[in-house]
């Protein structure tokens, strides 16, 4: 981890700005640009501070970076981006992408993404990533020149297509199953949490009405007036306190969301492995059938029905020279095939090894992060209760003086 970019460089996404410009189809559009600031960390000299370098990037460029990383490192669980559109909103939150709260939360999410990549032992060394952070102009061209889009297998885009793998790796099957469960349970949790937040908001805010009515009532009362008035004030405080409480909870929700999207990334790795295994089995199958064909031609026995065989029976046998030629072609193909199979097998084993290493790393990270998130959620709830206790203690005092 000493080589981690994160240790050598401070990275922040410090600002967000609304921009208008013309897009690829020459249509005017509004988008948000984010300012990435980097500064080299001098490990020895304390007094000296390296200058801050900065550049602006928009969300689509982050997406391009992530796509590149996913294709180039298929065995790595690539950190996810914050959501494209506001999801799991409860009624007070806006679903608008331009809403300043959404933009702010996205800014934090993007910074988190960069820090995750920069602290990943493999990903942090990628040159395109480094250029993303440091080179404003020409970065897009650089990425496209890598030709990564060609490597991207379009078959992976079909999310639900199953490849019939004869000998699936049990560990990957279990992992894929886990990632599905994780996705389902986290999204369910987020949905219910949003509804709970909505209801809690309602409870707090209606208490604000007490404040108004108490105050109006206190105007006609003599002895009760003061108590009512001050109690009303506390009701207002109570009603207002929910805004901060729920804002803090949004951060918790964002932490969970990150792992919702991480589950997708995990699933992607499993799928790539599945695809690899499928290709391997197909290649092996192909090789076996070619070898069989070769044998049949050589020995003249037809073990399997083939149209060629039938036509040759009907229209006469081939000449020995034709047969020789065919055998030669097949033998070449078989040679090629065996080499390919060997390299595919090797590829497969390497993939499994490195993927599994990253998966172990991810598991530890996930357990650590989620535990911390849950603890911070509990702390938030305790703090909310403490605030409640304070308000109602004050209110009780006012009431008892009525």
């Amino acid at each position: 981890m000493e080589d981690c970019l994160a240790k050598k460089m401070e990275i922040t996404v410090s600002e967000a700005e609304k921009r208008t410009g013309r897009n690829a189809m020459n249509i005017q559009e509004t988008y948000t640009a984010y300012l990435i600031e980097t500064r080299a960390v001098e490990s020895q000299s304390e007094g000296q501070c390296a200058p801050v370098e900065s550049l602006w990037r928009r969300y689509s460029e982050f997406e391009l970076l992530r796509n590149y990383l996913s294709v180039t490192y298929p065995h790595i669980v690539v950190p996810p981006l914050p959501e494209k559109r506001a999801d799991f909103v409860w009624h007070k939150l806006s679903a608008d992408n331009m809403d300043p709260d959404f933009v702010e939360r996205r800014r934090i999410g993007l910074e988190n993404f960069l820090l995750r990549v920069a602290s990943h032992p493999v990903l942090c060394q990628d040159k395109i990533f480094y250029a993303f952070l440091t080179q404003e102009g020409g970065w897009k061209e650089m990425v496209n020149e890598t030709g990564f889009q060609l490597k991207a297998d379009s078959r992976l885009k079909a999310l639900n297509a199953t490849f019939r793998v004869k000998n699936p790796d049990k560990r990957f099957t279990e992992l894929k199953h886990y990632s599905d469960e994780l996705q389902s349970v986290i999204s369910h949790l987020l949905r219910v949490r949003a509804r709970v937040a909505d209801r809690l908001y309602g409870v707090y805010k209606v208490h604000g009405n007490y404040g108004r009515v108490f105050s109006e009532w206190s105007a006609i009362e003599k002895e009760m007036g003061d108590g009512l008035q001050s109690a009303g004030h506390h009701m207002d405080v109570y009603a207002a306190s929910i805004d901060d409480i729920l804002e803090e909870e949004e951060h918790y929700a964002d932490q969970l969301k990150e792992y919702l999207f991480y589950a997708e990334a995990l699933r992607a790795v499993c799928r790539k492995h599945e695809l690899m295994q499928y290709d391997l089995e197909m290649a092996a199958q192909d090789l076996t059938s070619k070898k069989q064909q070769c044998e049949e031609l050589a020995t003249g026995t037809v073990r399997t029905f083939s149209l060629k065989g039938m036509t040759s029976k009907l229209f006469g046998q081939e000449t020995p020279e034709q047969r020789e030629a065919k055998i030669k072609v097949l033998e070449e193909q078989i040679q090629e095939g065996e080499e390919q199979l060997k390299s595919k097998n090797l590829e497969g084993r390497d993939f499994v090894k490195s993927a599994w290493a990253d998966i172990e790393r991810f598991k530890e990270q996930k357990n650590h992060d989620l535990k911390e998130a849950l603890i911070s959620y509990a702390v938030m709830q305790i703090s909310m209760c403490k605030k409640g206790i304070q308000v109602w203690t004050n209110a009780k005092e006012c009431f008892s003086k009525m």
Partner: protein
Amino acid sequence: DTSLAEVNSFSPSVPISPSSMINHYKFEDGPELRDLFITVDDPESHITAIETFITYRVLTKTTRGEFDSSEYEVRRRYQDFLWLKSRLEEAHPTLIIPPLPEKFIMKGMVERFSDEFIETRRKALHKFLNRIADHPTLTFNEDFKIFLTAQAWELSSHKKQGPGLLSRMGQTVRAVASSVRGLVKNRPEMFTEMNNYMETFSQKINLLDKIAHRIYKEERDYFNEMKEYGPIHTLWSASEEDIADSLKGIAGCIDRCCRATEKRMAGLSEHLLPILHEYVLYSEILMGVLKRRDQIQGELDSKVDALANKKTEKNLFSEEIGKLEDKVERANNALKADWDRWKENMQWDMRSTFTNVAENNLRYYEE
């Protein structure tokens, strides 16, 4: 003859003893001063060919001399309570008679014979009788005594002896007539102030009633969502190893929050909602009492005017006017004393109720 009953109202309002500042329905006399204890319980359903109705057991324990026995147990239905209330109103038009629970609540959710409705009504009937018992004047009312002690058939025959339907109608006609006349000319300042106060108070108490119901509803909705929230964490813990315990812990905490919310809601529906509702009804009653006082005064005023126009038959009128003047003065005093008493009670009730709400919330957050 109403004059005798009114004399008792000259007694000063009973001071509130510190020992009675208990955190539930409070009755003004401390337990040492009370000599009449009433409970309403045991609702029972009666089905006849014509109708179905509920009776409640009214249990009375007393040390008073006027009562032949020290304990009485009778069964009464809602109609009987209505009868008692109207008798008290007739006998003491300017005293504040406590409210009865409404005949039928059009809230859509509560059916006429649902357990919830019956229980709410029972509690309100219990309160009604106890408020009368604590009232310095009403507690000695003869109809009240009969209500508490008479067997069913005795009560029926006594009811029939009351003022006929016609005389009651006559009162209603006069009431309508006087209200049409508008503001009474010689209304003492004190009562105009009371009127203004009641208008605002009525408005505010109605609002508070609505707010409290709204809070209850929001809490219920919150509770319903929370019920689903906990189990998700348990479900999640099934797929995890390292963090399974933390998740199960959170699920457990959420469930405890649910139970605390339930308690909070129960507190609202048991204490705050009934009291606010009672005072909503009280505000209507008080407006009625103020109107009746105005009526009585109106009678006097119209007679005085008539006298001013007719110089003859002075003596006859003078006597009538004298009587009316007395009536007005007594009515005014009765009302004033009762008003002060009512306000003190209201204050106490509000204070204790809202303090109770605050305590409930404290308990909720502490849990």
